């Protein structure tokens, strides 16, 4: 990730952005630079943190917990690189929206039926 002065936060090969908790110095520059307000400072360990897409689960073939428990199936998760995956087909078929694309963030979180007022 561009703004981290010690490269403690990085993108894995499968596209998930994670934080190395042993390396983060807690300068919080990434928190300031995140246009989505997705990051926060872990109040106990004083390092930056964010949603990991349940990396411990998805690397074992499970879904992220929020996708798993959603009672109405509003959340979908999958590998966009696999054209046969459900998520790739949904992205193909549905009219989807992303947030703050104009900032060059190349977002991978798609929303359906997004209100224009949402930022």
């Amino acid at each position: 990730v561009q703004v981290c002065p010690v490269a403690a936060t990085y993108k894995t090969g499968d596209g998930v952005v994670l934080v190395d908790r042993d390396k983060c110095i807690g300068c919080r520059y990434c928190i300031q630079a995140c246009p989505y307000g997705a990051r926060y400072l872990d109040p106990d360990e004083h390092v930056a943190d964010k949603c990991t897409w349940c990396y411990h689960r998805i690397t074992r073939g499970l879904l992220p917990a929020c996708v798993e428990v959603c009672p109405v199936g509003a959340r979908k998760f999958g590998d966009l690189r696999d054209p046969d995956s459900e998520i790739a087909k949904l992205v193909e078929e549905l009219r989807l929206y992303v947030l703050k694309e104009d900032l060059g963030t190349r977002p991978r979180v798609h929303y359906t039926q997004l209100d224009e007022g949402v930022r």
Partner: protein
Amino acid sequence: MDGYTFPNEAEFQWSILIVLYPFITGLVAGAFVVSSLYHVFGMKSLRPVARLALVTALAFLLIAPLPLQAHLGHPERAFLIFLQPHFTSAMAGFGYIWMFYLILVVVETWLVFRPDIVALAQRSRWPLSHVYQSMALGVDDVSEEALAVDRTLIKVLAAVGIPSAALLHGYVGFIFGAIKANPWWSTPLMPIIFLLSAIVSGIALLIVLYVVSMKLLDREIDHDCVRAMAGLLAAFLFIDLTLEGLEILSMAYEQEESWDVVRGLIDRMAISFLVVQILLGAVVPLFVLGYVSLARVGRTLSTTIATVAAAMVVVGVFAMRWNVVVGGQMISKSLRGYVEYEWIFGGREGVYMAALILCLPLLVFTVLATLLPPWLPEPAPAAAPDATPSLQPRMALPQGAFAPGGERGSYFIGLPDASPRKRYVPLKLAVAALLGTMAALLFAVLTQPGEPRLLELPGSRPEPVLVTPYRSVFAAPLVARITEPIGGSWVEPLDVTLLGDRVFVLDHAGEQIVETDLEGRFVTLFNAQNVPGLALHHPHAMVTDGSDIYVGNTFPPRVYVLDVAASRLKRSIVLPPGEIEGLPAVPTGMALTAAGTLIISDGQNHRLIEVQRDGTPVRVINRPSGSWDLFQPGNLNIAPDTAAATIGQIAVTGRPGSVGVTADGTILALDVLGAGVVRLKPDGTIASVFARPGDPVGGVFEPSDIAVDANGRIFIADELIRGIQVYDAAGVSLGLLGRSDPNTFNEAADVMRPSALAIQGDSLWVVDRGRGLVRFALPPPEWPVAP
């Protein structure tokens, strides 16, 4: 908080320490530029402050990284930014730029003061003489040739220093300007605005420092020098103000999407931005300084006015840093709301810490100025037209200047025109005040509330107690876990009952009764297919009298009496409907009394029904007063007024769930809504209520089943606290069964959703909904002794 903000924005990330960082580096850059204006561009009117500027720059530069260091979540990892910098980050360069600049300033300061150091080394007494000798680094050649080389070097360094100063502070502006996510920061003008405000603040600080120092030292002020600095200050201030105005103007005129939120921010910062930064910190001083520079006013008056104006400018620049750093964080990334700044005073990131760090450069300055008095004007170079024709090696320091005799103990030595008898009372008072303030601030940092603490002393921070540690463990070893019957299956086990070595599990979703042996091996099934008439649909409860099993079914509501030996349905008992609303009686809990009657819980009608085993009604126990009646203060999170308004409804809302009967005939009914256990005498009158959720010890919250063992101990399964609360016969808590640490939910539990209990001998059988059967061995009755 106002408007729409993201949850993570509730916490303010960059505190007042990050306001200090650009403020202090700005003062460094500005002071250095003043010294360079003399050394490189030969502005001779600045000669009295050229050395002062260098010492000031050095003092503030030494402290510049401290606010950042103190602010890091992990200060001990700060070295990583040097060892493994990630150069795509705007922040990664700080360490290197700061280090480079520090070397430059130190070398230049050394060169400028070298003749003084050599002279002081010769003239001062032990131990100071040793200090100066080591400071001279063995270079004691102060011949004219050597000094000429020095001057050339100084000129080169000063020249290199100007772009370096621009880099140092422009870079700080870039750190903010490069944050595209923040419309208040993200502008290419940011580095230039930071740079100009840095120069402005440096010049202003020098004016104040110079005038105040001269006053404290009782020395003569060079009014022309002050006037020159005031002119410079006005010029840079004008450019700075113009750029800042242009930035806001272009934002206002372009009216991009973010303008609404920025305009709102300016409204919110009316005091610190419009009044302090713009009006008092720039516009008023600009007019005053312009007046002083252009109009004819007395020298002393003009110096006084310029000093006051300069002090206002310093405050204004501090406000500017504040408005950038704090203001930028007040905007939500949603661009639809604002976050409030939270004032924290104590701790490592608090206001007291910031004030302490702000005092530090003054202390460093005092020490430096004591060692290397910058009050003497720098000797003019021999080549300069106005230079004294013959420059003696030590002419900068007139003989006798360092007479230490009467001056030992005074703060500044080597004052050429200072009479040895001067007491420097204001100076001593000022230094004492500085030290006192710093000591008080340090005390405040350490003692006032604020996170994180400066020093994490063992025991200095008590661990926050989130759960009152009131539950103890009822230690019953887990004997067996039967997730699925061996050789068979169930869908959703809900209740269990035992008949000798036969285990019957009521499968709610499977609409069947699964029989296994004690080891969990599948034996047989009872359902509508193999037992005619056993139409199980949402069956809820089971009880056995030793030969038959009574199954409470909800649709249709009735009790099936199953003869398991013959695998046939003996009869179905239809219970009398409720007297008030006429609702059918739905059996949700059942228990067998010693007399052989059935106590059936009819939650829907808020009553208990006692029937003979053949179905003949015996009596109905309607809500005894104070029993399954919700209107008990503190039962649920219902505001008193709401409760009062709906008292009519609430009075019929509490309902009995599972029931149990003790050996002496006492009926124990769980109130599933009021949560608690209602103890009824055999005649149906209420004896007591215990295990309320508000009880300090052993309350239940979502009780699902109750069982009583041969020793009178009462077991209540609770799905919310994921365990089984155990009580003695009197209702005194004996602890929680099923979790190794009852005070936390972090540890894995033996049971997740205990929905039913059955006791046979010393075995407690627990149905864990979705997880099967769990069997615990109950400890003997003498253990544990109730407290």
